[in-house]
C-alpha cells in the first residue's frame, strides 16, 4: 500500500452557467491522484477540460457563473492533515497559493506584470511568503533566477518582462513559482508558446526542479511527446473526463482507449519512416455527445457499438494502475474491427 497521495481529486466537475445560454459542463467528473514528488500529466485537446481543472484546483475560477463540485484533497506541508482545495475559504486558499501550490501558465508575458521589473515581482513573493526583507530578499531573488538558468541574474532583476525573450520570461515565471519551494506545481501548457529548442531547455529545468527540490508537478498539455519523457503517470482527458490513465510506459506501450490509441496513430513521429501513413481520428471534438447519453467519444470511435450508449462507461482497471473508461477497448486489436455486438439494447 503506497503512502497517501499528496493530491487526490475525486469527481471534480465544473459547470459554467450563463443567462439565456445552455450550461456548459467543462469538467464532468475527473478523478486522479498525484504522489509526493511525482509528475502527473493531464493530456487532451482543446475543450477537454484540462485547463479548467487546473484553475479549479488553484481556486482561480471566476466567482460567479461557475459551479464546482467534487473534492480535491491536498496535504499541506506533506503532513497528515488534509484540506479540500475546492471548499477552502478564499483567505486560506490565497495563503496556500504561492506557498504550497504554484502555477505556471502558457503565456508568460500576460502572466507577468508588464510595468513592474522582474526582480520586484520575484522579491514580492519572497517578502510575502518567506518573510525575507530588503537586501536578503533581493539576493534570494537573484539566486532564484540563477537557479532557473537566467544568466546574469543581478542585472535581470531590474529588467521589465518585455525586455526578456519568451524562454527567459517562462524561466522567470518558473522562478516565481518555485520561490517558496511549493509542494505542488501546476504547469498549464508551459512550453506551448515556445520554440522547440527552448522547450527542451524548459522541460529539462522542470525535470531538474522535480528531482532536486522534490516538488510534485501536474503537467497539463496537449502534446503527448512532452509527457512521454516527463511524466510518471499520464491521464488522457476527453470531453471533461479521464478516459485513460496509466504509468507512462504502460500507456504508450498498450494504449487501451480508442481515443488514446487514435491520437498516437495520428501524430507524425519524428523517428518514424517517412512513408508510414497517419491514421486520423474522424470528426472533431465538437462531435462529442453528453456523457449522460453514452461515451462522449462514440461518434468518432471505430469501435463504436450499440452498448456504448446509455450512460457513461465505467472506469475499468485491468493491469494495476492502468484504468480506462471504455466498453470496447482496443487491446492491440486492429482498429475498425467491432467486437461481437453485445446483447443489451443501446436505447436505454
Amino acid at each position, binding site marked *: 500500500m503506497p503512502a497517501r497521495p499528496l493530491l487526490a481529486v475525486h469527481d471534480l466537475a465544473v459547470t459554467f452557467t450563463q443567462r439565456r445560454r445552455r450550461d456548459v459542463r467543462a469538467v464532468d467528473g475527473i478523478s486522479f491522484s498525484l504522489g509526493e514528488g511525482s509528475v502527473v500529466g493531464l493530456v487532451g485537446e482543446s475543450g477537454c477540460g484540462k485547463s479548467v481543472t487546473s484553475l479549479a484546483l488553484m481556486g482561480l475560477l471566476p466567482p460567479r457563473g461557475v459551479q464546482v463540485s467534487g473534492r480535491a484533497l491536498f496535504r499541506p506541508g506533506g503532513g497528515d492533515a488534509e484540506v479540500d482545495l475546492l471548499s477552502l475559504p478564499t483567505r486560506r486558499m490565497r495563503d496556500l497559493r504561492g506557498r504550497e501550490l504554484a502555477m505556471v501558465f502558457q503565456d508568460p508575458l500576460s502572466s507577468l506584470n508588464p510595468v513592474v521589473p522582474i526582480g520586484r515581482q520575484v522579491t514580492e513573493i519572497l517578502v510575502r511568503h518567506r518573510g525575507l526583507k530588503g537586501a536578503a530578499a533581493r539576493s534570494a531573488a537573484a539566486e532564484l533566477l540563477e537557479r532557473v538558468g537566467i544568466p546574469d541574474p543581478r542585472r535581470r532583476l531590474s529588467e521589465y518582462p518585455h525586455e526578456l525573450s519568451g524562454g527567459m520570461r517562462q524561466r522567470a515565471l518558473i522562478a516565481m513559482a518555485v520561490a517558496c519551494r511549493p509542494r505542488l506545481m501546476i504547469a498549464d501548457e508551459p512550453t506551448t508558446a515556445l520554440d522547440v529548442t527552448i522547450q527542451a531547455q524548459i522541460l529539462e529545468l522542470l525535470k531538474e526542479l522535480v528531482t532536486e527540490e522534490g516538488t510534485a508537478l501536474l503537467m497539463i498539455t496537449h502534446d503527448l511527446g512532452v509527457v512521454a519523457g516527463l511524466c510518471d503517470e499520464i491521464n488522457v482527458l476527453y470531453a471533461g473526463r479521464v478516459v485513460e490513465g496509466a504509468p507512462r510506459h504502460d500507456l504508450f506501450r498498450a494504449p487501451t482507449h480508442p481515443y488514446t490509441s487514435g491520437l498516437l496513430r495520428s501524430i507524425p513521429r519524428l523517428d518514424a519512416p517517412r512513408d508510414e501513413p497517419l491514421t486520423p481520428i474522424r470528426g472533431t471534438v465538437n*462531435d462529442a455527445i453528453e456523457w449522460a447519453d453514452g461515451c462522449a467519444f462514440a*461518434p468518432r470511435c471505430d469501435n463504436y457499438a*450499440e452498448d456504448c450508449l446509455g450512460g457513461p462507461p465505467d472506469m475499468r482497471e485491468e493491469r494495476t494502475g492502468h484504468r480506462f473508461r471504455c466498453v470496447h477497448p482496443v487491446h492491440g486489436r486492429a482498429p475498425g474491427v467491432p467486437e461481437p455486438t453485445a446483447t443489451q439494447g443501446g436505447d436505454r
Partner: protein
Amino acid sequence: MAARTQRIDRLAELTAARREEAEGRGVWREAFARMSRNPMAITGAAVVAVFIVVAVLGDLIAPYGPTEQNWGDEVFPNRNVFVGPRAENWLGLDNLGRDQFSRMVIGARQTLMVGVVAAGLGFTAGALLGGVSGAAYALGGAAGRRVDTVLMRVVDMMLALPSLLLAVSIAALLGQGLVTVMVAVGTAQVPIFARLLRGAMIAQGGRDYVLAARALGARRRRIALAHILPNSMGPILVQLTLSLATAIIDAAALSYLGLGNPDPSVPEWGTMLADAQRFLSGAPQLAVYPALAIIVTALGFTLMGEALRESLDPRLRK
C-alpha cells in the same frame, strides 16, 4: 443492416442535439439578431422610433400651430404669470402665450434634421478622408504612407481645435441659421470618423485574409473596397449613432449661443432652451421640457450605439 443504421441514427441524433444549428448567417445579421435580444438596444430603438415618428408627423400631432397665441382674454401679455399645464395645453404656454406642447412636437423635426444632416455630413466626409488614408497606408507601400501622413496631419489640425470653437468660427463665416449649425456641427465630427475608419482599416489591412486576397491575385482596389472597408465599418457605424446624439446636443448648444434659426415659426429644441433661460426662475418648466427631450433622445441614440458596439465586439462573438 437495419439495426446498424438505427444505431447510427441514434448517435447522429445525440450528436446533433449538442450542436448549435448553423444557419448561414453573415456577421451583420448575427449582430442584428444579438441586438434584438438586448434590452439596451430595444429601449434605445423605442426612444428613437418615437422621436422619428414625432419628427415626421409633427404637424399632424401638434394640436396648435407653432405661433398661435389665440387664448382669448388670457393673462397675456403679463410677463410674470405663466400658464402651466392644463387640459387644453398639456405642457402649458410659453412666455409669448404659445402652446409649449405643439412647439416641442414641431421642434422635433428641426432637431432630427440637424442631427441627421450634421452626423451624416461628418460621417461622409470623415469616412472619405479616413478611407482614402487607411487604404493608402494599408496597401499603397511607401508612397501610400506619404499620402496618409499628409491627410492625417490635416485631420490632426481639425482635431486640435475644440469642436465647439470650430463650429463657432464656421458660424461666424456663414452667418446665423440652420445650415450654419448643421455644417458647423458636421465639420466638428469629421476628424472623429476619419481617425476611426483609418485606424480600423490599418488594423484590418494587417490581417491574414488581406494577405490571402493579395496571394490570390486580387487588385488593390478590390481588396480595399471588398475586404478591408466592409470589415472596418463597425466602429464608424457605432460612432454614427453616438454622433447623432452629440450632434443634437452640439446643435442645441449653438442655438443656445444664438447661432440657430431665429424664425419663430420653425421651433427647435436648442433655440427653445436658449429662449427659456431668461425665465428660468419664473417658469423653469419651459427649459426643462426641451432639455429633457434633448437628453432622452441623445440617450436613445447612445443606447443603440452601445448595443451595436457590443453586438459587433469580436470578444463577445462565438
